[in-house]
């Protein structure tokens, strides 16, 4: 019995009467589920960032609250909740208050189409990828509005930089994903993962799907690299964290935000980090499929496809992103634009051609 079966057995027995009584509860479950994932992943990621950065910098990081300081983030969030609510007098009040949430909403929306495990997806759209790319661009608006509404020249500079950066790096992100669309012939996220699962070499009781992952094809590997770089720029992480460049712009678009509103921006940034890692995992690294065994017997089931592998892959990607953040310096805005326009976009266009050749030779993977 796979994981979904376990879950249904556990919860289904006492939830079934509730569903019969009020069928609309069934719609609430994925909502609560997604919000829980967003919140927990953000909390965990903040803790992870603090510990990883501490490790890189010969420090220790949070220690006291909880084992290995795990509860530190929760207490920090509580502290931010009780802080004074400051809105600058000359700021555009409505936009100022709404902007952080506009930045947060796309992160939540996008989690709905990420398959976490076999059958574990909140909204199994057959145009999931298209929905992903479209909705993902909405987060930019929140940042730009924050920069404008703060009535602060530093925030304005940060917001303008964000506008340029995030819009520019959408393009290589999209184009690299197009190669995957060509190779798999589908826009549905579950179908893309399914096409990467399944065996390619067999040695009973194992059949390893590793080589079927998209990152082991030429266009897929190039697309993965391009997407990951574009993703770093999309979530404002070093070396592309110009919009909130602390040493230059005080705090960029964040400058006038304090307390809970700032926490929402922070939450949005970390949710986005986990999100793009999740998207990269789904599109390039096989999603929830296991590299060891896809069809196994008895005790080997735990090594098989499932949420555990999704979490492991996302963790590896997130670790790499954090590693890069704490090692590299920041690029300047014109250098960042040069990287995008002269490097990533031509490469991603070329990658589309390579993908076309790949499809002609190998056929569409199904």
């Amino acid at each position, binding site marked *: 019995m796979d994981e979904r079966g376990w879950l249904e057995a556990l919860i289904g027995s006492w939830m079934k009467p509730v569903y019969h009584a009020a069928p609309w509860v069934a719609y609430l479950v994925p909502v609560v589920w997604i919000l829980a994932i967003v919140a927990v992943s953000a909390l965990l990621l903040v803790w992870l960032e603090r510990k990883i*950065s501490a490790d*890189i*910098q*010969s*420090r220790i990081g949070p220690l006291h609250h909880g084992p290995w300081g795990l509860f530190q983030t929760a207490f920090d969030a509580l502290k931010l909740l009780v802080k004074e609510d400051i809105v600058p007098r000359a700021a555009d009040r409505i936009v100022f208050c709404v902007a952080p949430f506009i930045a947060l909403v796309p992160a939540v929306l996008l989690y709905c189409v990420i398959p976490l495990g076999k059958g574990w997806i909140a909204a199994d759209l057959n145009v999931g990828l298209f929905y992903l790319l479209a909705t993902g661009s909405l987060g930019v608006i929140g940042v730009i509005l924050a920069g404008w509404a703060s009535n602060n*020249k*530093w925030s*304005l*500079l940060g917001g303008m930089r964000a506008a340029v950066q995030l819009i520019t790096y959408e393009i290589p992100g999209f184009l690299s994903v197009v190669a995957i669309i060509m190779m798999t012939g589908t826009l549905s996220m579950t179908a893309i993962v399914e096409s990467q699962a399944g065996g390619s070499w067999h040695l009973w009781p194992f059949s390893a799907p590793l080589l079927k992952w998209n990152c082991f094809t030429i266009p897929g590997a190039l697309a993965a690299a391009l997407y990951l770089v574009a993703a770093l720029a999309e979530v404002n992480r*070093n*070396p592309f*964290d*110009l919009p909130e*460049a*602390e*040493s*230059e*712009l*005080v705090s960029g678009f964040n400058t006038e935000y304090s307390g809970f509103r700032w926490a929402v921006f922070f939450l949005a940034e970390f949710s986005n980090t986990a999100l793009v890692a999740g998207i990269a995992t789904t599109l390039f690294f096989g999603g929830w499929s296991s590299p060891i065994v896809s069809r196994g017997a008895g005790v080997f089931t735990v090594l098989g496809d499932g949420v555990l592998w999704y979490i492991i892959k996302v963790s590896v990607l997130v670790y790499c992103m954090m590693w890069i953040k*704490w*090692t*590299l*310096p*920041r*690029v*300047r*805005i*014109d*250098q960042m634009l040069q990287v995008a326009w002269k490097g990533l976009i031509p490469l991603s266009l070329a990658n589309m051609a390579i993908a076309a050749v790949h499809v002609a030779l190998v056929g569409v993977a199904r």
Partner: protein
Amino acid sequence: MSAMDVIGDIHQEEMLINMGPQHPSTHGVLRLVLRMRGEVIEESRFVIGYLHRNHEKISEQKGWIRALPLTDRVDYLSPITCEWAMALAAERLAGVEVPERAEWLRVIAAELYRIASHLVFAGTFGTDLGATTLFLYCFREREPILDIFEKLTGQRMTCHYVRIGGVGWDLPPGLDDEIRRVVDVIESRLPEYDDLFTNNRILRARVEGVGPVTAAKARAFGASGPVARASGVDFDLRRDDPYGVYSRFEFDIPLGQQGDCLDRFTVRLEEIRQSARIIRQALDGLPEGGVRTKLPARFKTPEGVAYGAVEGARGEIGYYAVGDGSEAPYRLKIRSPSFSNLAVIEDTLIGWKIADVVAILGSVDIVLGDVDR
């Protein structure tokens, strides 16, 4: 010309922006007023004086002995050299002899603090550019140096070690081995910084060719120290206007060619190596003897004029003293290196972007206590 300027179809607005005095990257209470078009600087002006304590007048009122501890606060990242310059001015005015051992101890202390100051520079420069990790590494290296000074003087930063006529205390037993160990460790870590940062493509793109200062400009402004040497001005007070026992040590003076941010960065990293060399030579040859000449209970400086200048971590720090026969200087002018170095870059910023302003300002390595006194 109005603030709105239409260039073809692109509308660009001018913005008058205030950077500081509270800002993460101005290295203290420095204020820049910048007129920017988009991200490019069109006009820049420095507003200084937020840390002005008028140390010169305080010295006139307090007298030599009581104003000497305050001198640490002028360049608080390299306090030994400030104290040394003031003591030098007093010694030259009054004709005080300094014992041999004290001169060698002064060299060791000054070079140790030069290393510490350059480590702070490297760390803050990295932070300005976004490489926060370099900051932590440099401060990890600097902690043992501050521990040494704590053992030697009881204080980590404002040491009050150099006194008129010598130094305050002799080395406690075991400290010279500790100094050797610390210096060895720091020197062994320098290649790591080169790997991670000096040879990093992104860092190079950020600092190579940015904010060049010509040698002629450096001389006209009186820029000194690594800023001048990075521009190619081959001048170091330790070699060219020797004080103390520096003429007995063998060391190189690193020079740059272009005077851009990268040169200023690499010159300082190389100076750390040279300081380590000097410290080892000084520890090897340290003579025996007393560490302080006994001064009269009321130390008076006769009439006359003297200038005591020392090569500090930031450049030439000099005390120009006019004596009048009393216990206090009649006039004490502090020639601070950061004051002149800061003036050099006031118009260097024009034409560069705001991100470069941070890089250029960081590479000059000013200390506001030094600029404002």
